[in-house]
């Protein structure tokens, strides 16, 4: 998938790509482990954004291990909050939350629910669950940085079904108007929402033209190519005093990594029995073996 950027961002070195791919496998296998605790979960939505989250947290964002409230950290807003199970293992890996807490995902009184909650989970910059608020929140954080003379980025991960929400476009208009160049959105274009294909339920194309018409710097990328994602997001994050917000349309596959889940609408929500769990984990590991 070619980028719409005029310049080609500098390539990422092999070691980084390898790390990001390993972290993506880590996220997918953790998703399976945690959903086993909850006994129900959004596997497919989490799998489509595994490389995006791995790339942001291990290749792009400016963070300090064990310091979830560091004021100059880059922010992350999870618009498609139902995939938060893909984020929690990363927060534990950053020592923002304890491993024992992670292991009790969704159990009574545990802070980790299906949707991320900033009041309960260190490292969650904004609560989500109601689709459509995250881009506005990211804009607010970018504006707060400006008022206070800080220079962090606000990364916002949006679902493609989320593009149906009116508030997304209010925020899009507003971010461009306020020249919030530190807002960097990524659309997980996995082509599916709950009831089926996004383009059948409520069509969103031409998506790139919509964002461009709202005044955004628009890029497209293969959302499972960690190297390309990382190169592009690093380039966007490193822009000097940007005045245009940027959006990356990341073309992905819902359920990516487990063949019987890929683009199968039922797997938006479900549960793997032990036999299928083994099959799924084998496939996730096979990706690693295949790449070596």
């Amino acid at each position: 998938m070619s980028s719409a950027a005029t310049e080609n961002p500098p390539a990422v070195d092999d070691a980084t790509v390898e790390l990001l791919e390993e972290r993506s496998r880590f996220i997918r296998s953790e998703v399976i482990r945690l959903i086993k605790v909850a006994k129900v979960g959004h596997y497919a939505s989490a799998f489509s954004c595994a490389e995006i989250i791995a790339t942001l947290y291990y290749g792009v964002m400016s963070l300090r291990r064990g310091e979830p409230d560091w004021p100059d950290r880059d922010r992350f807003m999870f618009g498609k909050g139902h995939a938060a199970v893909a984020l929690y293992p990363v927060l534990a890996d950053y020592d923002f939350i304890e491993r024992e807490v992670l292991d009790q995902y969704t159990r009574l009184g545990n802070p980790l629910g299906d949707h991320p909650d900033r009041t309960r989970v260190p490292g969650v910059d904004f609560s989500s669950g109601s689709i459509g608020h995250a881009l506005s929140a990211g804009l607010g954080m970018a504006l707060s940085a400006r008022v206070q003379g800080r220079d962090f980025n606000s990364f916002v991960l949006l679902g493609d079904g989320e593009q149906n929400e009116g508030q997304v476009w209010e925020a899009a208009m507003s971010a461009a108007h306020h020249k919030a160049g530190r807002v960097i959105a990524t659309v997980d274009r996995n082509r599916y929402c709950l009831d089926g294909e996004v383009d059948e339920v409520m069509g969103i194309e031409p998506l790139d033209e919509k964002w461009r018409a709202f005044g955004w710097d628009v890029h497209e990328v293969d959302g499972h190519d960690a190297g390309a994602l990382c190169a592009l997001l690093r380039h966007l994050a490193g822009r000097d005093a940007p005045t245009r917000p940027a959006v990356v349309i990341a073309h992905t596959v819902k359920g990516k990594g487990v063949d019987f889940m890929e683009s199968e609408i039922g797997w938006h929500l479900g549960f793997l029995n032990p036999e299928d769990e083994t099959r799924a984990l084998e496939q996730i590991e096979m990706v690693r073996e295949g790449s070596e």
Partner: protein
Amino acid sequence: MATRQIQRSSEQSWTLLDLLDQAPGLIALSDTLVEITEDGAPVVALTGDLKYSNGLVRFAERYPERFFNMGISEQNMVSTAAGMATSGLTPFVADFASFLPLLCCEQIRTDVAYSQLPVRLIGHHAGITLGFYGTSHHATEDLSITRAMAGLTVVCPTDAAMLAASVRASVAWEEPIYFRIGRGREPDVYTPEQLRDFEFGRAIWHHRGADAVVIATGSMVSPSLEAVRKLRGEGHDVGMLDMHTVKPVDRQAVLMAGATGSPVITVEEHNVVGGLGAAVAELLAEKGSRSRLRRHGIPDVYSLIGPPTHLYRHYGLEGAGIEAVIREELEKSRTLSVAAGVAVA
């Protein structure tokens, strides 16, 4: 904050830009925001294409870099303010009360109240103050909506001086706040000195009373006081309580009002369902008060259209109308006590 007398000949032309001159409450809002910003509060102000209607233009002129016009996209505005509040700012979001808690109900619940972020929402032109603009612009449900949100403070300042005092008090208040105000033209009830000890959640007694107690909030305090003073002048011992904070309601004051066994009358420019009257009813019923409760307000209907003063008269929400309601309750008490007396005899 000095308030201004309104004197305007009916023949004089005026425009949107002159509106603020007629609204000392809105001037007090902007000027107090400037004052607390000068004192170091990390204030930003947001509105949705209404800076002349709510007077934030005054704040914007003083602090252009701290003012954000978010256009007519109120839901985005509330979530943006929540995002700002996560990162060290105290956003004041002003918009018509008909749009803030109604249109943005879920953004306020999820992003502000549940997230416990120090966002200050200012719903102005609340109640039926926008008279003939019609139901879309009336807000007679906003207290019910905001009162049902855990962790949200709900305050209805009485006049310009109390608006200034409550904005100052907000600096040290951690919870998010919904300020409900009118057009900013409410008559002065207080001097700034009288509000030196102003606190959220602590109601202000104007009179104690053994025959009845009126509990009013926001725009209804001034006409209620007028009614109460008239009746007191006639020898009726009617009490008067300004319940500026609807949540958390001053429980002690309400229970004191209901301790006499005499009628308690709530007055609000709001539907009688869910607002101040409901808050008082819940408390009196739970505590087994013997006081009869009369909830006076908009009687669970959509208001007629008409000039505001005519509407207040129609719904009995001016001095004379409130006085009539209190008289009815005093009369009921008299009849009941006579009947009780006969039965005992």
